[in-house]
């Protein structure tokens, strides 16, 4: 067994593999199918201040090499999350780390969710969703440099826990947003959220997705995620969690070589819940074969022209 541990966000991680927000519920839903406590951790479904109803169906559909979704951030809201969901995570996960994904319409929404959770047991830190493409104004913070700067600074004032900002890919220069997060006190970045997309039912001449458009995920977006992780790596020294289309250890290693310290597996879970463990095993096999530790591989990409 190779050394796949990481030390980041102030703690040790037994595995670099996490489950992505929106694909693993609040953990409990997959408890019978995935040995969650053997993973690096999981990121919860987004939590907003008030419960959200979400979008009308269809909310999901298959796309070439992936899927499109517009759930609309349906979630139980902050108080129900604290009462009904967080205790399970606290009681059942001891080695896997929990990040709580937080979403809001306004800066105040974000601040209230983070401050409302900060004293609770059962989680490590926050992943701030400034990039959901499926709700009105969902990308506002993630694609507006000034709004992002004030949001990150405001959240930094509320918590000393790890603060990870989940970036949208839908900006011309992701490096700019990565730097803004760093300058305003974020501890890390998640790269990337989904790409906006649309599917049309040509027989009905209507959008397939009830929300009209949605976010595209799955293997089809792997190269974009790897590229944007690499771009973000060049722009900042913040630790990066690589996300987008990972379904094997080899996929995850592309993110690691591009600069990711940790990775998240999302859509692939729907195809095979065992994928998260398989990704870990695949990384392990590569490190064994190459006699390296995972830490030695982070950002170890060699470019044409680099000295050998």
């Amino acid at each position, binding site marked *: 067994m190779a050394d796949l541990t990481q030390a980041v966000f102030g703690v040790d991680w037994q595995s670099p593999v996490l489950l992505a927000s929106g694909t693993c*519920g609040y953990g409990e839903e997959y408890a019978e199918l995935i040995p969650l406590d053997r993973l690096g951790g999981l990121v919860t479904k987004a939590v907003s201040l008030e419960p959200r109803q979400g979008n009308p169906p269809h909310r999901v559909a298959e796309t070439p090499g992936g899927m499109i979704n517009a759930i609309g951030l349906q979630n139980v809201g902050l108080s129900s999350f604290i009462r009904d969901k967080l205790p399970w995570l606290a009681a059942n996960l001891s080695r896997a780390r929990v990040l709580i994904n937080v979403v809001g319409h306004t800066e105040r929404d974000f601040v209230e969710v983070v401050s409302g959770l900060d004293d609770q047991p059962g989680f490590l830190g926050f992943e701030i969703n400034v990039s959901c493409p499926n709700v009105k104004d969902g990308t506002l913070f993630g694609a507006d440099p000034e709004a992002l700067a004030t949001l990150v600074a405001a959240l930094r004032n509320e918590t000393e826990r790890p603060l990870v900002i989940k970036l949208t890919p839908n900006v011309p220069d992701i490096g700019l947003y990565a730097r803004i997060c760093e300058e305003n006190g974020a501890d890390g970045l998640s790269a990337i959220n989904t790409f906006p997309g649309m599917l049309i039912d040509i027989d009905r001449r209507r959008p397939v997705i009830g929300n009209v458009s949605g976010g595209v995920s799955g293997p089809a977006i792997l190269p974009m995620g790897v590229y944007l992780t690499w771009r973000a790596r060049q722009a900042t020294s913040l630790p990066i969690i690589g996300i987008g289309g990972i379904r094997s250890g080899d996929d995850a290693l592309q993110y690691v070589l591009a600069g990711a310290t940790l990775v998240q597996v999302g859509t692939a879970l729907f195809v095979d819940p065992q994928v998260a463990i398989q990704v870990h095993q695949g990384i392990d096999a590569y490190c064994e074969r190459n006699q390296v530790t995972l830490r030695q591989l982070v950002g170890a990409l060699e470019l044409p022209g680099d000295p050998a």
Partner: protein
Amino acid sequence: MRAPIRQWAGVRTIRKAAEETWWMELDAPGIAASAVPGQFLMAGFGLTQVGAPFLPRPFSIGWTDRSTGTVGLLIREFGGGTRRLARLRGGDQLLLLGPLGRSFQIPNGRPLVGIGGGVGLAPFLFLAAEARDSAAEVRLLYGERTADRVFDPALIAELTGVEPIVYTEDGSTGRHGLVLDGIDLSDDPVLLGCGPTPMLNALEKFARERGSDLQVSVEEHMGCGVGTCQGCVVRGADGSWLKSCTEGPVFDAGDLTWPI
């Protein structure tokens, strides 16, 4: 309810049961052992490929044989994903996750009428087969548009021991009309419906007007099958969205907003 099982399962047999309609039997002992009528499974090709179907597809569990560990699925070709499933042959492998979801809730002592439209027949094959060795009376009403799409009645009888009453919209086989025409309420049965949305809407109106108990199995696009993605929602009676994978697929009709 027992925990779902994730397993690769070999196709035992697949036979054509009607136009673009196939009956597949899979070697899946764990799922066969614990599945209950009304539950479903997700079937897909795993992660080594990204062709359609990339996401697994939900199927009502159509039949089980616990002694041989067999699970039967009724597959109709709707698009690229189901077409590929229909092209499988004996020995091919599918990745299954199941059994999943809420089953039919069967009260003791009352007759059951399974009302299936198209491949909505599937859960009632399972229900009727399960009732075979019990005192429960199960009647099957089965509707299709045309004769060429009617699942072989001899195969239904072989699987379940029940002769379905078949309706076709054009009268090309069986009785001419809609399955609703065949519902006999004289012995106060529990109505169980599965099929296309217009059929379920008509059935709900029929049952409501007559004060009959109705449970329906709904179908919505599904991502995970286990309640995490919240993709497969239907509108509950109070206006909230209910997950058809975990809160359904079988709902008491009164728990939904109609028409669906």
